[in-house]
């Protein structure tokens, strides 16, 4: 029955389960070769950066080129710590999910630098509009781990009163906007928020993150149109981790060479960067933040990375991509790369790293123990059931009052 030649073009990845992982079609320019223009450059002048790849750490783990942010070792060690914590936390939470402690979980493995380095390059009060794979921001901003876990297990201390799926954090005190389960909806909201920052005379900017797959949504276009038209101080990040659940990035990219290139069509400064390079993410975010704060408008940043694990606990990637792809990923692992850079500088060593991992794992385990004292989804206590009727409106109207009474709570 099947036509061997499809009658219209349907893009497909180079390899599928059973094949050997192969990224030979991906061109990786050497680190340090991209230029770093002044932040006042016109968006239209950044075409080379949208098509290139800003990289700082080279294959010897040395920081090279104009984009090297020349960070103090202390800062890099902090970044390393946040990334390791993100990974350890993700790992533990996934295990707990498998044990039935929570309904769902999503890891960010392989992409820790995208969130952590960006968060560190931003001011702590810059409002972030993340998607569900930037939990690293929370660690970088110092959110209490027990609080994070209480949200994930929807217990009585969940700051969201059990209303959201795990991982869909909100943390107003940390200027971390609510994560929507609906893809890309927050991209244009971030632009509106940024405009309001300007309106109020704040120096704050905003940043938002979506995935490669999500860039296909209409709201992507809306966000870029708004950002371009009103010259808003916002950083619009596209995290190209190669996959959108089972769908490879080519389904959203189509014939275009990079996702960053889209930004050029709106006259926005657009950068494609090595998302597994902590220093590149840091430097690019700093550049974009400076540009935004100086009134030169928005920057589109495509972070080129790889989703090293399943989409979520509901997903099994062995059904659609070869095993071992993560190891074959030509841009390596963000934790390893920053670690090796620090080691090369004489500012870190394997023992300290092992100790760090152990310390953080213990922290996570201890935090979970504490979190459980506030209840679990399965055994409670949860947020009191009548809270289900609260916060629909500032005050419940007669309908909600009746309904609460009907439920007898």
């Amino acid at each position, binding site marked *: 029955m099947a036509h061997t030649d499809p009658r219209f073009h349907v893009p497909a990845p180079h390899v599928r389960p059973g094949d050997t992982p192969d990224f030979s079609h991906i061109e990786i320019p050497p680190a340090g070769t991209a230029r770093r223009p002044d932040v006042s450059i016109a968006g239209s002048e950044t075409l080379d950066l949208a098509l290139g790849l800003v990289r700082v750490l080279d294959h010897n783990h040395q920081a090279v080129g104009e984009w090297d942010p020349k960070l103090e070792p202390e800062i890099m060690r902090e970044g390393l710590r946040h990334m390791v914590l993100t990974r350890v936390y993700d790992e533990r939470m996934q295990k707990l999910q498998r044990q039935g402690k929570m309904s769902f979980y999503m890891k960010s493995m392989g992409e820790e630098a995208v969130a952590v380095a960006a968060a560190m390059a931003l001011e702590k009060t810059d409002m972030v509009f993340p998607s569900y794979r930037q939990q690293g921001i929370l660690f970088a901003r110092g959110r209490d781990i027990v609080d994070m876990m209480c949200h994930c297990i929807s217990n009585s201390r969940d700051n969201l009163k059990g*209303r959201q799926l795990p991982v869909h954090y909100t943390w107003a005190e940390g200027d971390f906007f609510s994560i*929507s389960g609906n893809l890309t909806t927050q991209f244009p909201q971030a632009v509106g928020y940024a405009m309001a920052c300007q309106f109020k005379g704040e120096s704050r900017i905003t940043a938002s993150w979506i995935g490669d797959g999500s860039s296909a949504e209409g709201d992507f276009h809306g966000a870029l149109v708004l950002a371009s038209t009103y010259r808003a101080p916002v950083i619009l990040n596209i995290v190209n981790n190669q996959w959108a659940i089972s769908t490879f990035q080519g389904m959203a990219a189509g014939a275009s060479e990079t996702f960053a290139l889209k930004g050029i069509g709106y006259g926005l400064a657009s950068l494609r960067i090595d998302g597994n390079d902590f220093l590149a993410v840091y430097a690019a975010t700093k550049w974009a933040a400076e540009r935004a704060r100086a009134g030169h408008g928005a920057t589109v940043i495509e972070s080129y990375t790889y989703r090293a694990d399943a989409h979520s606990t509901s997903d099994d990637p062995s059904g659609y991509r070869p095993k071992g792809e993560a190891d074959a990923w030509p841009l390596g692992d963000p934790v390893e790369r920053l670690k090796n850079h620090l080691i090369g500088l004489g500012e870190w060593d394997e023992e300290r790293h092992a100790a760090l991992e152990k310390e953080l794992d213990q922290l996570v385990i201890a935090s979970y123990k504490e979190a459980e004292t506030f209840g679990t989804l399965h055994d409670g206590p949860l947020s009191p059931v009548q809270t289900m009727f609260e916060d629909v409106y500032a005050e419940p109207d007669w309908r909600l009052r009746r309904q609460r009474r009907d439920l007898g709570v």
Partner: protein
Amino acid sequence: MSKMNMIQALNSAMDNMMERDANVLAFGEDAGYFGGVFRVTAGLQEKYGLDRCFDAPINEAAIVAMAIGMAANGLKPVAEIQFSDYIFPGFDQIVSELSRLRYRTAGTFTAPVVIRTPSGGGIRGGQTHSMSPEAFFTHIPGIQVVMPSNPYDAKGLLIAAIESPDPVIFFEPKRLYNGPFDGGAGKALEAWGKHPKGEVPEDHYTLPIGKADVVREGSAMTIVTYGTLVHVALAAAEQSGIDAEIIDLRTLIPYDIETIAASVNKTGRCIVAQEAPRTSGFGAELAAQIQEDCFFALEAPIKRVTGWDTPYPHAHEWSYFPGPKRFINAMREVLEA
């Protein structure tokens, strides 16, 4: 007090609020320099500046999203959707985002956005300038839905909407912008100037959201409606001599069940009316709730007077629009049942 038509009353509400609260913003397609295709935001850009009243790109999703982001950062955006027929590209932002931000953040973020949009038919606008899509919005928890039927209410309710801590979809029955309308084909334009509700204070005032208005007292039956059809219902009572009590809902969500139930319990008969297509229109919600709350008082089935389950036609507009004749037929049926 001034004579105002509905456009002027709405403009006056915006003007009052922009004067009072420097965080109130108005924007939308053609809403800035030009002041809106219906002129509701006329003069506001000149008076308050480019960043208080401005044009937006033609992307209704982005308009709603921009408003959400601004409101989350403490501003009070009043976004205009040029025709309510064009609100649907922004529907996802309303259903999935605007309505739920308070809930899903347990109250730490809110988006008290007002979306103003002209709705309803009677202007020969054809299928894409005539819709009455209010029912869709009444099914979204977290959203308030308001529709005034005259200049006085329009101003008081718009100010209340802007001051509300919760998002409001504010429908403006465009057939009423320039005058009350109770008829069909060939009906000449009356002016608001002669109507008592065309007397509008120039200063700030509010009408409570959630409170209906009994615009005609009567004993024979209750007619519950809103927007343009309030005037049609009044005309039908007049023309038929049937002593109907007529309730102008003004707010659809939350609707004023107390006022409705009190009236139906008194009259024992009820008609609900909407201009939108019949099936799953807001009249269905009203009828369902009224029969539940007033069952033992009801002497006849609740009738629905509605638009038909078709797109809004152009040439046959007046066969689609539920005019006085359709009201009177239904009133007779309800009386005779």
